[in-house]
């Protein structure tokens, strides 16, 4: 429907129903509940028919752009293709009908999925064990930091409350540290975007709990000094945390465990192809080295020698971080993906992601400013147009891309460059798609000079145009209110 502009509440008509439930033939009725405990006001929930609901949400879906709609080069987000077999295995009634508190012996299939996924994640990362409880990347970071603190605290090393975070890090890193009660200290980047080891050295003392790093870093560059950094941090008694947001180019090629990382998280919704769902549900498993196994949160799935699976807790556990055992159906999807790839194809995932990123970078660096001209991994960052005379911003470029039928890249992150445009193509995009994107980016660079107004006003063909964000924040309307 063209220009669809309804909220579900605006379709509501007294007397309509969208449900079909059995008649109430029970003897006991709700009015038995003492009045003081009963709801007094009407809820105001809508009254709509089933076809109304289906058409409304189908119309809403048509106002969205997903990976299945088109190329989604959102940097740091790994918007790869989400295979459909994943959805099918995750929806098997044998999995979806399991109550989380059922006895272990009645949910052996569920526990087997968890165990096999854990083993597979260990294989590709070089870690010794994983907890699957964390619900998302940021939740994984927090869980990993809890494990880090628990490790120091259980050794009676109470003064270790400082965590070192690169200035290029994603905002969740310092925020997770703060939630975990840690003090954040920034380490600078060198002009080529990697951690400045000379700036790191004076920060290292006996109050350091650890350092949080991505590798490749936020600029898509491999931290070539990782061995020295690991030695320095370990040398002062700290631990190395690996933020798995950028794991994709290493998949099948390099393992964080081999680089000296003690704790890491993965984003199953990035590296392991489970859909992002418009912002979740994701899953953020946390892996640890053998020495930290005992600190993992519970419940933890283990296997005994007879092929039976159990739930247990380590004696120094960091505690419970999720109501039950995490986003199970996301785990089914990730394991399905790994089984489809297998030992052979998983080796190609990282290299093809790096190939696509480098190809786009090399094809556009004459018209967009490339601040660091090095081989990149899964992504890279432009700092606006090469020809800055038009004054066109990263935002305008991003919005214009929507008109060309592409999702925008990540913009204004990392904070190291004023006009950051962060592009991550992933391995599931074909050369044809990348060539079309390159063509669009080159057109935009030309438009910036020849007809800049078209960029100032972009986008033009989207369901809505640029929105007034200041109005939204200064006079917040956060829920539907019926017009009187």
């Amino acid at each position, binding site marked *: 429907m063209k220009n669809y502009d309804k909220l579900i509440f605006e379709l509501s008509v007294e007397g309509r129903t969208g449900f079909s439930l059995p008649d109430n033939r029970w003897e006991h009725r709700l009015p038995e509940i003492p009045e*003081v405990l009963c709801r007094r006001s009407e809820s*105001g929930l809508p009254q709509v028919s089933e076809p109304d609901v289906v058409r409304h949400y189908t119309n809403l*879906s048509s106002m969205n752009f997903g990976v299945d709609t088109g190329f989604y080069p959102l940097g740091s987000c790994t918007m790869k293709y989400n295979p459909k077999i994943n959805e099918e295995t995750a929806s098997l009634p044998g999995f979806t009908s399991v109550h989380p508190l059922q006895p272990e012996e009645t949910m052996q299939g569920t526990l087997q999925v968890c165990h096999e996924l854990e083993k597979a994640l260990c294989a590709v990362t070089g870690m010794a064990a994983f907890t699957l409880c964390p619900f998302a990347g*940021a939740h994984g970071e927090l869980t990993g930091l809890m494990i880090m603190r628990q490790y120091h605290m259980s050794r009676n090393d109470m003064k270790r409350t400082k965590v070192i975070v690169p200035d290029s890090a994603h905002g969740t890193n310092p925020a997770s540290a703060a939630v975990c009660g840690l003090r954040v200290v920034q380490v600078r980047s060198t002009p080529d975007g990697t951690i400045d080891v000379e700036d790191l050295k004076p920060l290292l003392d006996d109050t350091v709990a650890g350092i949080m790093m991505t590798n490749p870093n936020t600029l898509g560059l491999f931290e070539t000094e990782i061995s020295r950094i690991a030695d320095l941090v370990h040398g002062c008694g700290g631990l190395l945390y690996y933020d798995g947001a950028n794991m994709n180019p290493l998949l099948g090629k390099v393992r964080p465990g081999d680089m000296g990382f003690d704790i890491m998280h993965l984003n199953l919704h990035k590296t392991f192809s489970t859909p992002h769902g418009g912002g979740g549900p994701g899953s953020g498993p946390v892996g640890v080295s053998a020495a930290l196994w005992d600190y993992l949160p519970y419940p933890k799935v283990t296997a005994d020698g007879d092929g039976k699976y159990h739930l247990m807790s380590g004696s120094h556990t960091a505690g419970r971080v999720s109501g039950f055992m995490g986003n199970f159906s996301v785990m089914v999807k990730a394991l399905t993906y790994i089984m489809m790839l*297998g030992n052979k194809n998983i080796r190609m995932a990282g290299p093809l992601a790096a190939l696509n990123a480098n190809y786009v970078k090399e094809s556009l660096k004459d018209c967009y400013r490339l601040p660091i001209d090095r081989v990149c991994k899964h992504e890279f960052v432009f700092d606006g147009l090469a020809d800055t005379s038009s004054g066109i911003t990263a935002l305008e470029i991003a919005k214009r891309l929507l008109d060309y039928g592409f999702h925008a890249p990540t913009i204004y992150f990392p904070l190291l460059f004023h006009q950051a445009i962060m592009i991550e193509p992933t391995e599931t995009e074909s050369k044809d798609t990348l060539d079309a994107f390159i063509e669009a980016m080159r057109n935009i660079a030309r438009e910036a000079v020849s007809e800049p107004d078209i960029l100032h006003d972009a986008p033009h063909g989207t369901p809505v145009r640029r929105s007034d964000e200041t109005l939204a924040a200064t006079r917040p309307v956060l829920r539907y209110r019926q017009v009187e």
Partner: protein
Amino acid sequence: MGFSYFPHTDEDIREMLKKIGAGSLDDLYSDVPEEFIFKGEFDLPEPMSEMEVRRKFSGMAGRNRSLTVFCGCGAYDHYSPAVIQYLISRSEFQTAYTPYQAEVSQGTLRYIFEYQSMITMLTGLDCSNASMYDGATAAAEAMMMALACTKKKSRVLLSSTLLPQVLEVVGTYARYHGIDIGHVQMSDGVTSLEDLQRQLAADDVAGVLVPSLNRYGIIENLEGFADAVHAHKGLLMTYSDPSALAVIRTPGEWGADIACGDCQSLGMPLSAGGPYAGYLACRQDYVRKMPGRIVGETVDRDGRRSYVLTLQAREQHIRREKATSNICSNQSLMALYATIYLSLLGRDGLRQVNALSYGGAHYLYDRLLSTGLFSPVFDKPFLKEFVLDTVIPAERLQQHLCDNGFFAALATDDGHVSFCVTEKRTREEIDSLVDCISNMA
């Protein structure tokens, strides 16, 4: 090549490497120290065809026993209308990212706005965020929010009648965040107002979290709680089952400042514990301390109504270590799940779900007592869940029921057995559960 998720032909790779000026894919890793290039074999099977994968997962799913669920304890076997799975599977919803680019994310932004609206309708509070991971983590966020809203206080009180997993998760967050946790005693199955008042006297309490529907299934009477907490400048927080809020007194009506809970009871599949979605709602005064995404209404350049992520100055990508929380994503697709569920059920349907659950649960309660094998624990009103004491050893009882296809009589850590009945349970199922128990004696 020939793997279905990778579109590259050998010719593509050759041409792309040429453009890059690299001789091989390995050259793209020339900056990685040689010792870190993995040269071994991954301990993974060889690739499987889609047929083989389907067979493998069907086999694993088949290892789970199919049980008729008579337990709740934080995960409820409510009915899920067919429409929901059908709609949330639309890939425009499923394969989108967080709606940063509002112009091409109005679908996601609108349903989150609807979700927020519905949560405020259910809770009777002013504002909701775009959803949290689950109920337990929503409670932990509520605790940290209470601390941020009340200056110079470092203590939070939790009712002992909250679900055990909620107490444990909140306890974990508190331990690392440096929050002093106190527990309010239980008195005859409900939170003791007397004990609460005693603990508030020190004036160091930032917030108090109590359940509306507690771990024993009892509907708590929170009369006087808000006044007691507010008199000491703290915030009252409730942990409330959103499904039940169609019929029981709302957090807003009790005078609560913050409400949290798990949207799982809105028809979400049990799925061994997730994905579900937590909700978090609050009074207008506290919205700028709210964690997570919030969607607001505005207009676009042409004056058309549009929706955007808003009040972002609270969030980690702007505030970094000073953010209200580290939370980044929400459980967006599960918020859509809840929204479609509530759209279909609407005002009357959600009441009907509660009426059927109530009727069935009280029928089971009466029948169990009439066997003579059970005795009441608390004499308090309950909705769909209750605990009893039994002369049968709890472990033997549960085992026997599992062997006969029931998941029921879950032993609680304080020595009772717990039962739950939703609208999905028929009279025949309840009768056969009771017969199965009677046959044991």
